[in-house]
Structures are given as structure tokens and as C-alpha cells.
């Protein structure tokens, strides 16, 4: 007995050591996991357990200057489902037939935005009560599919002011990446254009959240925590719904009138009504237009493609700020004022117009729009008759004078750079000068030289000069108010929940041309003459308000002439500046000016009857 015990002694020691090593290594490993890196495992456990979804806040409403709704919300039923149902093809097919959305559209929506795993995807917004009831009754057949309350934008005016209001949609990858909306998450509905975009932060409100505890299958066990969303604020615009309606109608009528006059290619155009003192945009129209409600619940690809096709004339573009046109003869008011202010012209400066102008030599001769010529004219008569010959001479004077004074004055009136309106996408337009021409033609040395003809062309608003309808309106507002360029804006106030204004827009001066009273009077006299005895008289016959305006007929290579009219009124105490432009609409005096009269009739509460007149000027 003792013998085997002695034999075994060392072996027990080995067995004991093996056991100790086994238990010791387990202990060491557990120390490392539980004590040293316990917190990171605890974080992983929390990550397993907790899921968070955000709760959308109700979007603020957009009201007109009188508090009437332009955009509101409507509660709707939305059919939602988690991404996981896409694996069940029979379910997806069945659902597709019930809610009337094609299978591939559903698949696409389920596949979108993977970031929030639990967040249900909206498959169809605004389903009828019947469909909602059907899905609720047959919920066993549609696991995961839910009918939820949601809200969609409602546009009481249909497409009214669509370009100002803009549309909403799911945030894009680029918008997310830009960091402009730091709180935004994939799947959020944000403003895409217009006021919806520029005041998105105000309208958006603050999202709420809901934290769930889930099990290993992702099933919700309990709600841990909830933060209620804070609704977005309402905003009041400077837009007057009634004036806006008339402005859009006037623009559409102008296009129809152009067709009547044989300019059948006329499709696009813009009209702007500004308050000359505050820069408030009273109305802003762009044609062709669109219905913002087509974007609700995600626009169909075919519809989107159609809106962006070349043949569509790009209805999503707000031509009032996103398109730049040659101002043509409407620019003569700016040239005249520039001449008066710089002393290159006086009210009595007279030139002879023989019809064909040879001021730069015979080989560079230019026709006046009236080939018969206007004879000898003063400044006022030249503006009234829109005489090109007269302004060719003015252009030549500016060319000969030192320092590009015409360009400088145009810029002081806000042309050639963005005015900074609170709408996205505004373009700068162009006031050409020697430096610009050199840079623009850097690859064509033979075209880099600024020539006398460039200034001469610019003096009749042609050449390389480009202005947006908004810039032109703003310039006319400045010509009416003494030379102060006020930043145009569409926001009147942000409203607190009780309806009082929490933020009010203030008048912001962009620049001041310091026009002298005498010069203002001279120009006013000339512009009133346009609508009484000049190229615009046909459109203003019998109009009780004195209007200071100027017609324009722009030549654009390869297209029919563009019809323009710019004005401010009442001439003696200007309140509004109005610009109407019809692309390929023909003559400013017979197509654009009647539209301006139609708008003014509304502004001043006067009766308007359709005007058919003729105009051959340019």
C-alpha cells in the first residue's frame, strides 16, 4: 500500500498543477474581459439592447402676407414596413396589389437608407381609409406592415407660387454630406427648393425620439424613453396671394397673347412685383410652372424625368431668379441715368437718328429699330421712342470717357451680382467689361479686346449684358426710390406658436446710387412718356395710375425676340416695381406691358380688361 502511494505522489502533483493551470487561465481571461475591458462589452450590450427611432416634427405652415395659408399640412395614413419584409416576395407582391405600388418600387423603397435599421420605410403615403382598414383587418397576412399617421404638405392654391414655396422631399445624399442640416438623418423630409429649402431649419422643427429595448429578434420589448417632437414654426411671406394669382394669370395671358401675335414658340417667362421701399417680393411668377404636390411621398421617376427633359422648358426653374436675359431697351433707363449722374448727358443733350448709325465708321454701321430714323431727339424723346440711334451715341460717349462708368453705375444698381434674396439658386447675371472679356475669351486672343461696339451694344441693353428679372425689378425700384437698392426678400416674419411674429425681416440696403432729384425727375418724365406717348402707350390707354416704365424687345441668337417690360408706379410716389419677361414672346410693348398693367390693376384695385395692342419697337 505504501509503495503505490509513494509512486503516485508526484503524479498527483502533476494532476493538481494541470487543474490549477486550467482554472488559473480561466480566471486570468475573465479578469481581462470583465474587469479590464468590461465597459466596452457593456457598451456592446447596450448597443444590442437599445434601438432608437426619431419622431418627425410637424412642419411649419407657410402663410401669405395677410396670414392666408399657402402651404399647410394634412394628416394622412401611411403604409410602412421594415426593410426585412423584402425577403418575403409573396408578401411584397400581395402588398403591392393592395396599396397599388409596383413591386420594384416597393423593393427600391425598402432598400433605401440602411442607417436606421428599425425605422420603418414609407411605402405609400396617403392611402384611402378602405386600404388602411383592409390592412388592419388582415394584419396577420402582412407581418411587419403598419398603417401610421403621418402628415403631408397641402397646397391650397395648387401650383400657386410653386417656385417661391418650393417643394419637399427625402433628403439627398449630397444634402446630407453638405452638413448644412446637421441634425438631418437619412429619410428625413426636407425642403428642396424655394422657401421650403431656404427656411427649412425654421419650418423643420425639432425631431423627437423614442428609445426601445429590443430582444435578439429585434422585437420591441418596451419603450425606454421618449422625447416629443417640437413642431416647426409657421412663416409669413411677403407674397400677397391675390396679387400672386393675378401675376401668374397675367404671365400666362402674356404668353397666350404672344401666340396670338404669331410668336408660337413663347412658353417661358417670369414676372416679379417688388415693394420699392422694402424690397419685399409681393409676387413672383415663373412659367412654365409645376404642381408641388407631385413630390409628396416621393416623386415617380418618370415624372421627374419629364420635369427635367429639355422639351419641358424646365418648369422647376424659378426664372425670376435663376434665368438671366439681355434687358434690351429696358436698360436704356439705366444708361440714361448713368449718363445724367456722370454728366455725360444732360436733359437737353440731343442726337440725330438717321435710321442707320455710322458713329464708328461706315463699316461698323448699325440700324435703329426704326429704319426710317427718328431725326433729332432729346433724351426724353429718345427714351419715349426707345431710339437705338440716340443710345448708340450715348454708348460711344461712355466708351470714350475714362473708367468704365456705365458698368460701374449698373453695378451700383445691383446688376451683375446676386442681390441675396432669401431663395436658393439666384444667379448673378453679367455686367460685361474689359477685364471680363479678356478672361472670358482667354483661349481666343483675337476676341479679348474690349471694342467701342461692345459699349455701344451695351447702351441698348444687348451684347453680353445679362440680368435676372428680379435684378431688373430691383434696379427699377432703385430708379424710382432715389437710388437705394434694397435686398429683395420673401420672408415677412417667423411666427411664434401663438401667431405673433418672433422674427421680422428688416430692410437691408445693398447699395445706394445717390440719384439727384433733378435726374430722378428727368427719368420719371421720360418713363411716364413711354406709357403715355411712347412705345408702351397702347397698353396703358385709360389707365388711371401714372406708370413709369420701359419696353424692351431682346434679340437672342437663334430665337424669337424676348418681350420685356419694366416699370415702377405710381410714378410720382413709387410703391411697386414690376418686371414681366416673356421668352420668345415678341414685342415688349404689346406682350409684356399689358401683363404689367393687369398686375397693376390688381395692386391698385382697378378694373382690368384684356388689351390687344401693337408694337414694332425693340
Amino acid at each position, binding site marked *: 500500500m505504501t509503495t503505490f502511494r509513494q509512486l503516485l505522489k508526484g503524479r498527483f502533483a502533476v494532476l493538481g498543477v494541470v487543474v490549477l493551470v486550467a482554472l488559473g487561465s480561466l480566471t486570468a481571461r*475573465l*479578469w481581462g474581459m470583465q474587469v479590464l475591458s468590461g465597459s466596452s462589452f457593456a457598451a456592446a*450590450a447596450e448597443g444590442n*439592447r437599445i434601438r432608437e427611432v426619431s419622431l418627425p416634427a410637424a412642419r411649419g405652415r407657410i402663410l401669405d402676407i395677410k396670414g392666408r395659408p399657402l402651404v399647410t399640412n394634412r394628416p394622412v395614413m401611411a403604409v410602412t414596413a421594415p426593410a426585412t419584409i423584402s425577403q418575403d416576395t409573396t408578401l411584397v407582391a400581395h402588398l403591392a396589389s393592395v396599396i397599388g405600388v409596383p413591386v420594384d418600387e416597393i423593393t427600391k423603397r425598402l432598400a433605401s437608407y440602411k442607417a436606421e435599421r428599425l425605422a420603418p420605410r414609407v411605402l405609400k403615403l396617403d392611402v384611402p381609409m378602405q386600404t388602411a382598414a383592409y390592412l388592419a383587418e388582415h394584419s396577420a397576412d402582412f407581418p411587419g406592415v403598419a398603417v401610421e399617421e403621418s402628415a403631408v404638405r397641402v397646397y391650397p392654391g395648387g401650383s400657386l407660387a410653386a417656385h417661391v414655396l418650393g417643394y419637399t422631399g427625402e433628403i439627398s445624399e449630397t444634402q446630407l454630406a453638405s452638413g448644412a442640416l446637421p441634425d438631418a438623418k437619412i429619410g428625413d423630409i426636407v425642403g428642396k427648393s424655394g422657401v421650403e429649402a431656404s427656411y427649412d431649419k425654421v419650418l423643420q422643427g425639432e425631431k423627437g425620439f423614442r428609445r426601445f429595448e429590443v430582444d435578439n429578434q429585434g422585437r420591441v420589448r418596451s419603450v425606454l424613453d421618449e422625447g416629443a417632437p417640437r413642431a416647426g414654426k409657421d412663416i409669413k411671406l411677403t407674397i400677397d396671394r391675390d396679387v400672386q394669382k393675378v401675376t401668374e394669370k397675367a404671365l400666362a395671358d402674356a404668353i397666350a397673347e404672344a401666340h396670338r401675335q404669331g410668336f408660337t414658340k413663347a412658353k417661358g417667362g417670369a414676372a416679379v412685383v417688388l415693394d420699392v421701399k422694402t424690397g419685399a417680393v409681393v409676387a413672383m411668377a415663373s412659367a412654365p410652372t409645376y404642381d408641388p404636390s407631385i413630390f409628396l411621398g416621393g416623386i415617380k421617376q418618370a415624372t421627374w424625368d419629364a420635369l427635367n427633359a429639355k422639351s419641358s422648358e424646365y418648369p422647376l426653374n424659378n426664372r425670376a431668379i435663376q434665368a438671366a436675359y439681355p434687358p434690351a431697351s429696358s436698360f436704356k433707363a439705366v444708361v440714361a441715368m448713368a449718363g445724367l449722374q456722370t454728366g455725360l448727358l444732360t436733359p437737353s443733350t440731343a442726337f440725330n437718328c438717321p435710321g442707320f448709325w455710322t458713329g464708328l465708321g461706315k463699316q461698323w454701321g448699325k440700324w435703329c429699330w426704326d429704319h426710317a430714323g427718328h431725326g433729332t431727339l432729346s433724351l426724353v424723346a429718345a427714351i419715349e421712342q426707345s431710339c437705338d440711334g440716340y443710345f448708340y451715341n450715348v454708348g460711344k460717349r461712355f466708351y470714350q470717357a475714362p473708367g468704365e462708368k456705365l458698368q460701374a453705375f449698373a453695378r451700383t444698381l445691383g446688376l451683375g451680382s446676386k442681390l441675396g434674396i432669401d431663395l436658393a439658386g439666384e444667379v448673378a447675371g453679367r455686367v460685361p467689361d474689359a477685364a471680363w472679356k479678356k478672361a472670358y475669351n482667354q483661349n481666343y486672343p483675337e476676341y479679348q479686346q474690349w471694342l467701342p461696339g461692345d459699349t455701344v451694344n451695351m447702351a441698348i441693353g444687348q451684347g453680353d449684358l445679362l440680368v435676372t428679372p428680379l435684378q431688373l425689378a430691383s434696379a427699377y425700384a432703385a430708379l424710382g426710390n432715389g437710388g437705394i437698392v434694397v435686398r429683395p426678400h420673401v420672408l415677412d416674419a417667423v411666427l411664434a406658436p401663438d401667431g405673433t411674429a418672433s422674427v421680422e425681416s428688416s430692410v437691408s440696403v445693398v447699395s445706394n446710387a445717390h440719384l439727384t432729384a433733378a435726374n430722378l425727375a428727368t427719368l420719371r418724365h421720360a418713363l411716364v412718356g413711354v406709357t403715355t406717348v411712347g412705345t408702351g402707350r397702347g397698353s396703358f390707354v385709360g389707365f388711371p395710375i401714372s406708370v413709369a416704365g420701359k419696353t424692351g424687345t431682346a434679340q437672342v441668337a437663334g430665337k424669337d425676340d424676348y418681350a420685356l417690360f419694366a416699370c415702377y408706379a405710381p410714378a410720382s410716389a413709387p410703391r411697386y416695381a414690376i418686371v414681366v419677361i416673356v421668352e420668345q414672346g415678341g414685342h415688349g410693348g404689346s406682350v409684356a406691358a399689358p401683363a404689367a398693367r393687369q398686375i397693376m390693376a390688381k395692386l391698385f384695385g382697378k378694373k382690368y380688361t384684356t388689351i390687344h395692342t401693337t408694337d414694332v419697337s425693340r
Partner: protein
Amino acid sequence: MRAPLSRILRDRVHLGVVLSTVALVVFGGVMVWAATMTMTGHAALVQRQYLGVGIGLIALAVMWVLDYQVLKAWTGPLMVALSLLIISPRIPGLGASVSGATSWLQIGSIRLFQPSEPAKLLFIVVMAAIIAEYGGKLDKTPDILKVVGLASVPLVLILLQPDLGTGMVFVAIASGMLLVGGMKARWFGVFAVAGIVLVLAVFALNSVLVTSMNKPDGVLIKSYQVDRLLVFVDPTRDPKGAGYNLQQSKIAIGSGGLTGAGLGMGSQSRLNFIPERHTDFIFSVLGEQLGFAGAVMLLALYLALMASALSVSASSRDLFGALVAAGLISMWAFQILENMGMTIGMMPITGIPLPFMSYGSSFMVTNLAGVGMLLSIWSRRYGTTTT
């Protein structure tokens, strides 16, 4: 003449064995209760487990009272019984296989027990009887080959079931007993190399057969077993599939920290993130709910049990008893290392439960019967009878 009670107790009761066992059984009972808390049929599962403890205590008493030396004389019949026990689930009318992994002995529709559990004890007894023949000197090649050859019979049978987990337990038991039985270190080296070569050969043959017979589920080794091994090598592999269990188990244990989330608490346990949390992964529940402190407490209890078993082994009146005790130590040590090791990524995942902790009556009864055998050896350390 009857001995006084205090003398009987001193002679027959090994305080270390009894106290550590009682503590482990209580601890295990609490853990099964806590682990099944949010499961459907919680009460029934707990009841069943406690019933298993009851049967196990009866088995313990029987083994205690029974003179273990009687078993030694029955080596031949016991070997036959062991083999029959191992293959019993394959006998038509007797066997049942649950989800292809656990084999049950059942008659009609009454499920009796998992034969692989008592087979472990029987294997220990048979091996002890065989090895004891050589009086603690196991150094002649023919002797060693004979012993290992005999040990291979039940091992091969269990591997053919296929029950890889129990097979590994058999190997661990045999190794510990051969160590105590006197096999030299170089022979362990020889068998280790032979074992590795054999395993590699099986893997190679399996992959050939998988492709030639076009059975992607595996022929000799199941594909899920291969997956588990690959996940062990690279835990980040397939986090939603084979790596999921390991990942969730590690999160549970790690998040327990020093003192744990508290009994019955812990999101990983409560919210079903831990798979098989009352059986193979019960330690993950313990780790999450009781933390490092609870884990160390468990390890200390295991250490106390095995140290006590070692003292029983050392004081056995014969080599057979010493070998049986060594076999039990090896069995427990390996199962503890493998089970706890797999929950923390130290060992590959196999279906080996944690002694006294995991849910399962057959397992509990077997472990308690093993404790009974220890006490039987202890009781008879001075002679066959003391009464």
C-alpha cells in the same frame, strides 16, 4: 458494536467534498432558475432540474453506500455494458435523437436519460480497473498498447455516434488516469502526435468525401463543427451565423464587470441574446449577472471540489480507488475548462455542459453519482468495512 455517530461521520464524510458539492448544487439551482426566468416554461424547467438533483442525491447515496471495490471484479461485464450504453440510442425502439446532437434513451415515448452521461462514469470505472492491473507501473510498450487499445473501444464507439464532445471528455479522462496510472511523458507525446495526425487525416478525408459525395453538410465531421472551429480561430468571422453565439456570450460575460448586473438582471440574458443560456451557455448568464466576483466564486468551489477529490485519491486504500478519483477530477477539470473556455473564446464551441450548473438531469445525476463514488472511496480508505 456500533461505532459512535461522530466516528462514523469522521470516517465517512469528506467535509471538503460534501461542502463544495452542496454549494455547487445550490449555486447551480439558483443559476438555472435565473437563466430560465424569462423563458417560456420557466417553472417546469426549474422543477425538472430540481427533480434531477433529487434523483442525483439518491444516486449519490447509493454510490456512497456501495463498496466501489465490488465494481473492480466486474470489468468484463461493465465493458460490455458501457459499449451497449454508448450504442443504445442507435438501437431501434430505444433511441431518440434530439436535433441531431443529443442522443436519448427512450422507451416508447418516455424519455429516460442521455446514455452518454453515465457512460462517462462507467468509462472511468472500466479504465480504472484495467489500469490498476499494472500496479502503477505502466511503462512496457505491450501493456500500454493493450490499455490504450481497450480504451479506444468505447472512444471509437462514441465518436461514431457521432458524439465529439463526449469523445473529448473520454480522451481527457483517459489522459488523467494514464498519468496517475504511471504512463511516462514521452508516451503522452507519442499519443498526442498520433492524435493530431489522426484528426488531420479525418479532416482531409472529410473534405475529400464532401466534394466527391457532394454532401456539403459533412460526412465524417459535420459542417457546423468545422464552422465552430473556424470561428474559434477567427471570432469576427460570420458574426450573424456561427460567430454569433460566441460574440453574444462574450458581450454578456464582459458586460458583467466586477460584480455583475445582479441575479435575474442583465439585458443579454433577459432579452434572449445568449443562446442555450440554461444549458451550454449558463456560464454566460452567470458572468453577466454575477460578474467577475461570481465567476471567481464558482471557480473557487470547483477548486475546492477537485482539491478534495485529489485528497480522496491520495488517501485511497487501493490504486483502483485512486484512479477512479483521478478520472473524476480529469472529467470535471476538462468539462469546466472546455465549457467556460468556449463562452469566453478560449476554447472552440462544443456541446459540453458545465458540471453542477448546466440544466440537464442526466448530467446532474452523473455528477452527483461521481461525488458518491468519491465518498465511497473515502469511506473505505482504512478497509472494506468500518461498521
